[in-house]
Protein backbone atom coordinates (compact mmCIF):
# COMPACT_ATOMS: atom_id res chain seq x y z
CA UNK A 1 0.00 0.00 0.00
CA UNK A 2 2.67 2.47 1.03
CA UNK A 3 4.63 1.57 -2.06
CA UNK A 4 1.61 2.29 -4.22
CA UNK A 5 1.17 5.68 -2.63
CA UNK A 6 4.79 6.50 -3.14
CA UNK A 7 4.61 5.57 -6.82
CA UNK A 8 1.64 7.80 -7.39
CA UNK A 9 3.37 10.62 -5.54
CA UNK A 10 6.42 10.24 -7.78
CA UNK A 11 4.18 10.18 -10.81
CA UNK A 12 2.48 13.35 -9.65
CA UNK A 13 5.83 15.05 -8.99
CA UNK A 14 7.18 14.00 -12.36
CA UNK A 15 4.18 15.53 -14.03
CA UNK A 16 4.60 18.76 -12.06
CA UNK A 17 8.28 18.94 -12.92
CA UNK A 18 7.50 18.51 -16.58
CA UNK A 19 4.80 21.18 -16.47
CA UNK A 20 2.13 18.69 -17.49
CA UNK A 21 -1.27 20.34 -17.10
CA UNK A 22 -3.35 17.62 -18.66
CA UNK A 23 -2.83 13.98 -19.47
CA UNK A 24 -5.06 11.19 -20.61
CA UNK A 25 -4.62 7.53 -21.43
CA UNK A 26 -7.32 5.46 -23.06
CA UNK A 27 -9.88 6.16 -25.76
CA UNK A 28 -10.49 9.86 -26.10
CA UNK A 29 -14.11 10.35 -27.08
CA UNK A 30 -15.73 13.49 -28.44
CA UNK A 31 -17.35 13.97 -25.02
CA UNK A 32 -13.93 14.07 -23.36
CA UNK A 33 -12.67 16.44 -26.05
CA UNK A 34 -15.48 18.86 -25.29
CA UNK A 35 -14.40 18.96 -21.64
CA UNK A 36 -10.78 19.47 -22.66
CA UNK A 37 -11.87 22.47 -24.72
CA UNK A 38 -13.53 24.05 -21.68
CA UNK A 39 -10.52 23.28 -19.50
CA UNK A 40 -8.08 24.84 -21.98
CA UNK A 41 -10.12 28.01 -22.18
CA UNK A 42 -9.87 28.44 -18.43
CA UNK A 43 -6.17 27.53 -18.23
CA UNK A 44 -4.87 29.65 -21.09
CA UNK A 45 -5.39 33.38 -21.13
CA UNK A 46 -5.26 33.98 -24.83
CA UNK A 47 -8.35 32.97 -26.74
CA UNK A 48 -6.41 32.39 -29.96
CA UNK A 49 -3.79 30.22 -28.23
CA UNK A 50 -6.43 28.12 -26.52
CA UNK A 51 -8.29 27.66 -29.83
CA UNK A 52 -5.13 26.64 -31.61
CA UNK A 53 -4.18 24.27 -28.80
CA UNK A 54 -7.64 22.72 -28.78
CA UNK A 55 -7.58 22.22 -32.56
CA UNK A 56 -4.26 20.38 -32.37
CA UNK A 57 -5.46 18.36 -29.39
CA UNK A 58 -8.51 17.20 -31.35
CA UNK A 59 -6.42 16.09 -34.32
CA UNK A 60 -3.98 14.19 -32.09
CA UNK A 61 -6.79 12.56 -30.14
CA UNK A 62 -8.80 11.60 -33.22
CA UNK A 63 -5.69 10.17 -34.87
CA UNK A 64 -5.34 7.87 -31.89
CA UNK A 65 -9.04 7.12 -31.91
CA UNK A 66 -9.05 5.99 -35.52
CA UNK A 67 -5.51 4.78 -36.17
CA UNK A 68 -4.02 3.33 -33.00
CA UNK A 69 -3.19 -0.33 -33.42
CA UNK A 70 -4.43 -0.96 -29.89
CA UNK A 71 -8.22 -1.00 -29.70
CA UNK A 72 -10.67 -1.06 -26.86
CA UNK A 73 -14.35 -1.93 -27.01
CA UNK A 74 -16.76 0.69 -25.75
CA UNK A 75 -20.04 -0.73 -24.49
CA UNK A 76 -21.72 2.67 -24.74
CA UNK A 77 -20.79 3.24 -28.36
CA UNK A 78 -21.03 -0.42 -29.32
CA UNK A 79 -17.78 -0.40 -31.23
CA UNK A 80 -14.06 -0.31 -30.76
CA UNK A 81 -11.84 2.75 -30.64
CA UNK A 82 -8.10 3.31 -30.54
CA UNK A 83 -6.17 3.65 -27.30
CA UNK A 84 -3.25 5.97 -26.73
CA UNK A 85 -1.76 8.57 -24.45
CA UNK A 86 -1.93 12.32 -24.85
CA UNK A 87 -0.56 15.17 -22.76
CA UNK A 88 -0.08 18.91 -22.68
CA UNK A 89 2.94 20.65 -21.16
CA UNK A 90 2.51 24.30 -20.34
CA UNK A 91 5.72 26.35 -20.26
CA UNK A 92 5.90 30.10 -19.91
CA UNK A 93 6.42 30.85 -23.60
CA UNK A 94 4.95 27.84 -25.31
CA UNK A 95 2.94 24.65 -24.96
CA UNK A 96 3.86 21.18 -26.11
CA UNK A 97 1.18 18.71 -27.08
CA UNK A 98 2.24 15.10 -27.37
CA UNK A 99 0.49 11.92 -28.34
CA UNK A 100 1.64 8.33 -28.41
CA UNK A 101 0.10 5.11 -29.56
CA UNK A 102 0.85 1.69 -30.96
CA UNK A 103 1.10 1.47 -34.69
CA UNK A 104 1.66 -1.37 -37.15
CA UNK A 105 5.37 -1.26 -37.98
CA UNK A 106 4.79 -1.38 -41.73
CA UNK A 107 3.04 2.00 -41.52
CA UNK A 108 5.98 3.75 -39.86
CA UNK A 109 7.97 4.53 -42.97
CA UNK A 110 5.05 6.26 -44.68
CA UNK A 111 4.29 8.41 -41.64
CA UNK A 112 7.92 9.38 -41.15
CA UNK A 113 8.21 10.41 -44.79
CA UNK A 114 5.02 12.42 -44.47
CA UNK A 115 6.30 14.27 -41.36
CA UNK A 116 9.69 14.93 -42.93
CA UNK A 117 8.08 16.24 -46.09
CA UNK A 118 5.73 18.53 -44.15
CA UNK A 119 8.70 19.88 -42.18
CA UNK A 120 10.40 21.05 -45.38
CA UNK A 121 7.43 23.19 -46.44
CA UNK A 122 6.99 26.93 -45.96
CA UNK A 123 3.65 28.27 -44.67
CA UNK A 124 2.50 29.00 -48.24
CA UNK A 125 3.52 25.57 -49.41
CA UNK A 126 1.71 24.00 -46.46
CA UNK A 127 -1.42 25.89 -47.43
CA UNK A 128 -1.16 24.62 -50.98
CA UNK A 129 -0.47 21.05 -49.85
CA UNK A 130 -3.41 21.16 -47.45
CA UNK A 131 -5.79 22.34 -50.16
CA UNK A 132 -4.52 19.80 -52.66
CA UNK A 133 -4.81 16.88 -50.24
CA UNK A 134 -8.26 17.95 -49.10
CA UNK A 135 -9.56 17.53 -52.64
CA UNK A 136 -8.17 14.06 -53.08
CA UNK A 137 -10.56 11.23 -52.32
CA UNK A 138 -9.63 9.04 -49.34
CA UNK A 139 -10.80 5.58 -48.51
CA UNK A 140 -10.50 6.09 -44.78
CA UNK A 141 -12.51 7.72 -42.01
CA UNK A 142 -10.48 10.89 -41.74
CA UNK A 143 -9.49 13.62 -44.12
CA UNK A 144 -5.82 12.71 -44.34
CA UNK A 145 -4.85 16.30 -43.63
CA UNK A 146 -4.50 16.21 -39.85
CA UNK A 147 -0.70 16.36 -39.84
CA UNK A 148 -0.64 19.26 -42.28
CA UNK A 149 -3.28 21.09 -40.26
CA UNK A 150 -1.30 20.67 -37.04
CA UNK A 151 1.92 21.86 -38.68
CA UNK A 152 0.13 24.92 -40.06
CA UNK A 153 -1.46 25.86 -36.76
CA UNK A 154 1.73 25.28 -34.79
CA UNK A 155 4.14 27.01 -37.15
CA UNK A 156 6.81 24.61 -35.85
CA UNK A 157 8.17 21.33 -37.20
CA UNK A 158 6.42 18.07 -36.34
CA UNK A 159 8.62 16.11 -33.96
CA UNK A 160 8.21 12.39 -33.79
CA UNK A 161 9.80 9.39 -32.18
CA UNK A 162 9.46 5.72 -33.04
CA UNK A 163 10.18 2.91 -30.61
CA UNK A 164 10.14 -0.56 -32.08
CA UNK A 165 8.30 -2.99 -29.82
CA UNK A 166 8.47 -6.21 -31.80
CA UNK A 167 8.30 -7.46 -35.35
CA UNK A 168 4.76 -6.17 -35.84
CA UNK A 169 4.27 -3.16 -33.63
CA UNK A 170 5.98 0.10 -32.81
CA UNK A 171 5.16 2.99 -30.53
CA UNK A 172 4.74 6.26 -32.39
CA UNK A 173 5.00 9.54 -30.51
CA UNK A 174 4.29 12.93 -32.01
CA UNK A 175 4.98 16.34 -30.42
CA UNK A 176 3.71 19.71 -31.52
CA UNK A 177 4.91 23.01 -30.11
CA UNK A 178 2.58 25.98 -29.86
CA UNK A 179 4.01 29.41 -29.15
CA UNK A 180 2.08 31.61 -26.74
CA UNK A 181 3.14 34.75 -28.55
CA UNK A 182 0.66 36.01 -31.08
CA UNK A 183 2.00 35.59 -34.59
Amino acid at each position, binding site marked *: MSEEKLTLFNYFNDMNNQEIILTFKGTI*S*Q*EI*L*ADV*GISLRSKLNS*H*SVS*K*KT*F*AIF*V*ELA*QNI*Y*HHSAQKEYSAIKGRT*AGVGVILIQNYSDYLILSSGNLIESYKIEGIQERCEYINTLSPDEL*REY*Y*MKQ*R*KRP*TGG*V*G*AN*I*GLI*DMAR*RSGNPLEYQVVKIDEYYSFFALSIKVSKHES
Partner: protein
Amino acid sequence: MDKIENFYIEGSDYIPEVDFNAETGVLNISGESYHEYTLEFFEPIFEWLKRYTAEGGKKIELNFRMSYFNTSSSRRFLEIMNLLEDYHENKGGQVVINWHYEKNDLDMLESGEEYAEDVNLEFNLLPY
Protein backbone atom coordinates in the same frame (compact mmCIF):
# COMPACT_ATOMS: atom_id res chain seq x y z
CA MET B 1 -42.39 15.18 -57.00
CA ASP B 2 -42.76 14.89 -53.23
CA LYS B 3 -42.50 18.04 -51.25
CA ILE B 4 -39.20 18.12 -49.43
CA GLU B 5 -39.37 18.72 -45.70
CA ASN B 6 -37.04 20.98 -43.73
CA PHE B 7 -33.96 19.44 -42.21
CA TYR B 8 -32.76 20.11 -38.69
CA ILE B 9 -30.04 18.77 -36.39
CA GLU B 10 -29.71 20.28 -32.95
CA GLY B 11 -26.12 21.28 -32.26
CA SER B 12 -24.06 20.12 -29.31
CA ASP B 13 -20.47 20.55 -28.12
CA TYR B 14 -19.11 18.54 -31.02
CA ILE B 15 -21.77 18.67 -33.72
CA PRO B 16 -22.93 21.80 -35.50
CA GLU B 17 -26.49 23.00 -35.64
CA VAL B 18 -27.80 22.21 -39.10
CA ASP B 19 -30.87 24.13 -40.17
CA PHE B 20 -31.98 23.71 -43.78
CA ASN B 21 -35.14 25.43 -44.90
CA ALA B 22 -36.58 23.72 -47.96
CA GLU B 23 -38.97 26.57 -48.79
CA THR B 24 -36.59 29.52 -48.61
CA GLY B 25 -33.45 27.66 -49.69
CA VAL B 26 -31.54 29.12 -46.75
CA LEU B 27 -29.22 26.46 -45.35
CA ASN B 28 -27.38 27.19 -42.09
CA ILE B 29 -24.52 25.28 -40.51
CA SER B 30 -23.17 26.75 -37.29
CA GLY B 31 -21.22 26.02 -34.14
CA GLU B 32 -18.50 23.42 -33.67
CA SER B 33 -17.87 20.24 -35.61
CA TYR B 34 -15.61 17.45 -34.44
CA HIS B 35 -17.79 14.35 -34.32
CA GLU B 36 -15.60 11.25 -34.02
CA TYR B 37 -17.45 9.59 -36.90
CA THR B 38 -17.72 12.59 -39.18
CA LEU B 39 -18.62 10.57 -42.28
CA GLU B 40 -21.63 9.07 -40.54
CA PHE B 41 -22.68 12.38 -39.07
CA PHE B 42 -22.70 14.07 -42.48
CA GLU B 43 -24.40 11.21 -44.32
CA PRO B 44 -28.02 12.39 -43.76
CA ILE B 45 -26.97 15.93 -44.63
CA PHE B 46 -25.71 14.80 -48.03
CA GLU B 47 -28.80 12.69 -48.57
CA TRP B 48 -31.06 15.65 -47.94
CA LEU B 49 -28.99 17.91 -50.19
CA LYS B 50 -29.08 15.36 -53.01
CA ARG B 51 -32.86 15.15 -52.79
CA TYR B 52 -33.18 18.91 -52.53
CA THR B 53 -31.05 19.49 -55.62
CA ALA B 54 -32.74 16.76 -57.66
CA GLU B 55 -34.99 19.46 -59.09
CA GLY B 56 -33.09 22.18 -60.94
CA GLY B 57 -33.26 25.98 -60.80
CA LYS B 58 -33.58 26.60 -57.07
CA LYS B 59 -32.09 29.53 -55.23
CA ILE B 60 -29.82 28.40 -52.41
CA GLU B 61 -28.03 30.41 -49.75
CA LEU B 62 -25.59 28.35 -47.69
CA ASN B 63 -24.39 30.00 -44.49
CA PHE B 64 -21.48 28.76 -42.43
CA ARG B 65 -21.05 30.27 -39.01
CA MET B 66 -18.47 28.04 -37.40
CA SER B 67 -16.30 28.62 -34.36
CA TYR B 68 -14.28 25.43 -34.79
CA PHE B 69 -14.19 22.37 -37.05
CA ASN B 70 -11.76 19.47 -37.33
CA THR B 71 -10.02 18.35 -40.51
CA SER B 72 -12.52 15.66 -41.41
CA SER B 73 -15.34 18.21 -41.17
CA SER B 74 -13.23 20.50 -43.33
CA ARG B 75 -13.29 17.89 -46.07
CA ARG B 76 -17.06 17.34 -45.70
CA PHE B 77 -17.69 21.10 -45.99
CA LEU B 78 -15.77 21.14 -49.25
CA GLU B 79 -17.85 18.21 -50.52
CA ILE B 80 -21.05 20.07 -49.66
CA MET B 81 -19.80 23.12 -51.56
CA ASN B 82 -18.78 20.94 -54.52
CA LEU B 83 -22.24 19.42 -54.61
CA LEU B 84 -23.78 22.89 -54.76
CA GLU B 85 -21.21 24.03 -57.30
CA ASP B 86 -22.33 21.21 -59.55
CA TYR B 87 -25.95 22.21 -58.99
CA HIS B 88 -25.12 25.81 -59.93
CA GLU B 89 -23.16 24.92 -63.03
CA ASN B 90 -25.21 22.06 -64.41
CA LYS B 91 -28.75 22.32 -63.12
CA GLY B 92 -29.56 26.00 -63.26
CA GLY B 93 -29.27 26.51 -59.51
CA GLN B 94 -28.46 29.93 -58.12
CA VAL B 95 -26.12 29.32 -55.25
CA VAL B 96 -24.39 31.73 -52.93
CA ILE B 97 -22.16 30.81 -49.99
CA ASN B 98 -21.77 33.10 -47.00
CA TRP B 99 -18.84 32.38 -44.71
CA HIS B 100 -19.43 34.13 -41.39
CA TYR B 101 -16.44 34.44 -39.10
CA GLU B 102 -15.83 36.11 -35.78
CA LYS B 103 -13.93 39.26 -36.71
CA ASN B 104 -10.83 38.49 -34.61
CA ASP B 105 -10.65 34.88 -35.73
CA LEU B 106 -8.03 35.05 -38.47
CA ASP B 107 -7.80 31.27 -38.82
CA MET B 108 -11.51 31.12 -39.56
CA LEU B 109 -11.17 33.93 -42.10
CA GLU B 110 -8.32 32.05 -43.74
CA SER B 111 -10.41 28.88 -43.89
CA GLY B 112 -13.10 30.85 -45.70
CA GLU B 113 -10.58 32.28 -48.15
CA GLU B 114 -9.34 28.80 -48.97
CA TYR B 115 -12.84 27.54 -49.68
CA ALA B 116 -13.53 30.63 -51.79
CA GLU B 117 -10.48 29.72 -53.89
CA ASP B 118 -11.57 26.11 -54.19
CA VAL B 119 -15.14 26.57 -55.34
CA ASN B 120 -16.47 28.46 -58.29
CA LEU B 121 -19.48 30.10 -56.66
CA GLU B 122 -20.41 33.52 -55.35
CA PHE B 123 -18.64 33.44 -52.00
CA ASN B 124 -18.93 36.12 -49.32
CA LEU B 125 -16.64 36.44 -46.31
CA LEU B 126 -18.65 38.14 -43.59
CA PRO B 127 -17.19 39.22 -40.24
CA TYR B 128 -19.48 39.43 -37.20
